[in-house]
């Protein structure tokens, strides 16, 4: 259970996020959509621990999230998510080594063989079984993202954070990645937060869509008011359409059809 309680994020005078309140049940897939610069990536960084909320708190199962990234939270960025100096297999193996070897950062002997088998199984699951000894620069963009997902999932994190993970991929490959991600989500029951600028992607993948937008805008002082979650739409999984009856708009407005949601 993730609870966001009255979270604000400001940079000096500029308010980016204001009064965010949100409760997300375990196993939800939250797509976060909205215009550029409306704070959805900032919110993801707060969840990640890369930045701290100016006010308010974020609780994971009732306890405040730690203020720096940790193994509870897996992440896949649009780029640079994998380590260029390690082969595919070692990229995944690294995550199995680091938490258990605090001095050398490496495992040896039987524990290493065990971890290697686990890494290989994970890589085979995401379709990289034939590329174990390749370096990331030898992989296509889609394969690099598969690797990044495998690297995050092998840690069995409490939640997976995706920052426009498929933004740099071709449409065909993006579709394959959607299928892979949905399958992995169903298998693991993981809580996922995904930032995307692609509305269709957000609705196709999410079990809940969070729309970030600025409710108040002062033309004289564009930074005076921040964005909020203006729509919090639970979706019927699979159909890809919002159920208007159970939607919780922040302010009383008519429920927009899918295509009318402001981007």
């Amino acid at each position, binding site marked *: 259970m993730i609870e966001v309680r009255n979270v604000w994020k400001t940079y000096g005078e500029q308010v980016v996020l204001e009064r965010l309140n949100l409760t997300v049940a375990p196993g939800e897939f939250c797509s976060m959509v909205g215009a550029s610069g409306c704070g959805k990536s900032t919110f993801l960084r707060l969840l*990640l621990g*890369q930045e701290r909320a100016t006010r308010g708190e974020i609780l994971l199962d009732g306890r405040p999230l730690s203020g*720096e*990234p*940790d*193994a509870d*939270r*897996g*992440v896949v*960025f649009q*780029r*640079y*998510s*994998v*380590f*260029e*100096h*390690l082969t595919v297999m070692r990229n995944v193996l*690294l*995550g199995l*080594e*680091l*938490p258990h*070897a*605090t*001095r*050398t*950062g*490496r495992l040896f002997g039987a524990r290493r063989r065990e971890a290697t088998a686990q890494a290989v199984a994970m890589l085979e699951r995401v379709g990289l079984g034939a590329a174990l000894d390749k*370096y*990331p*620069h*030898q992989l296509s963009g889609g394969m690099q993202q598969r690797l*990044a997902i495998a*690297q*995050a999932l092998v*840690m069995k*994190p409490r939640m997976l954070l995706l920052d426009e993970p498929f933004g740099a991929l071709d449409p065909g490959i993006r579709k394959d990645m959607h299928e892979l991600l949905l399958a992995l989500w169903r298998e693991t029951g993981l809580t996922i937060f995904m930032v995307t600028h692609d509305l269709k992607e957000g609705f196709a993948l999410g079990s809940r869509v969070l729309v970030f937008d600025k409710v108040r805008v002062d033309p004289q002082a564009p930074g005076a008011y921040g964005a909020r979650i203006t729509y919090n739409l639970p979706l019927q999984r699979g159909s890809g359409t919002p159920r208007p009856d159970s939607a919780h708009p922040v302010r009383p407005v008519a429920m927009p059809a899918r295509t009318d949601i402001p981007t």
Partner: protein
Amino acid sequence: MRLINRRPGRGSALALLLLPFIVIVAVYFTSSSLRLAANPDDKLLPSAAQMRDAVAQFAFTDDVRTGERLLWADTASSLRRLGIGLAISATVSLVAGIAMGSIPLVAATLSPFVTVLSMIPPLAVLPILFIVLGLDELSKVALIAIGITPMMVRDLQQRAREIPNEVWIKAQTLGATSWTLILRVIVPQLVPRLLVALRLSLCSAWLFLIAVEAIASTDGLGYRIFLMRRYLAMDVILPYVMWITLLAWLIDEVLRQITQRLFPWYGGGAR
């Protein structure tokens, strides 16, 4: 076709590559033979035969006074000084550069200090080194190390900062501590960049080596050419300069090969 779009073929590329070398050799030996024809005792532009004799004397004949073959003895002592100096600089800059590039508290403490240090002209410190460390090997190695380390530290710090933020965050989500993050991610990613920094510093390292050998030494390549200057022995100096150039190029090439072989991932394997 525009000049900017014309590219040489393979044959003409080789010809163009050789052209400046052929021109300079031709100009040199023409001038040399003209001067020697006018005055057979001219020392300024020695002929190929004179240089060959000098090389034979320095490289393949035992010196009467020391019983050594001077060129090789000079080369050995110079390369030893250069090697120790480069090794010290590489070690210090790897440790300091990575500490400063990875740990903000260290950077806040040392970064301005190293910037100030790197502004000190190393040769201005040489008298101090001579006074404090004496005139033998230690002060020579120290000058090379002091000369190139600050720039290499700054370079490595900069390279560490250029590692994308995503990489730092990702490693933390994989359960890395500060120490294991540096050990498993930052150091391996920076070692090839250290080799590149070392290659760029080679030029300065040679400069400091030759300078310190010219000022206070009894052997070494720099010592020899400055000694020979007293006798206007261009027939020795010119082959020595060519030898130094060849050595510098070879070291650079070896470092480049090491970078390529050991770090196939670096620069997409292309650099």
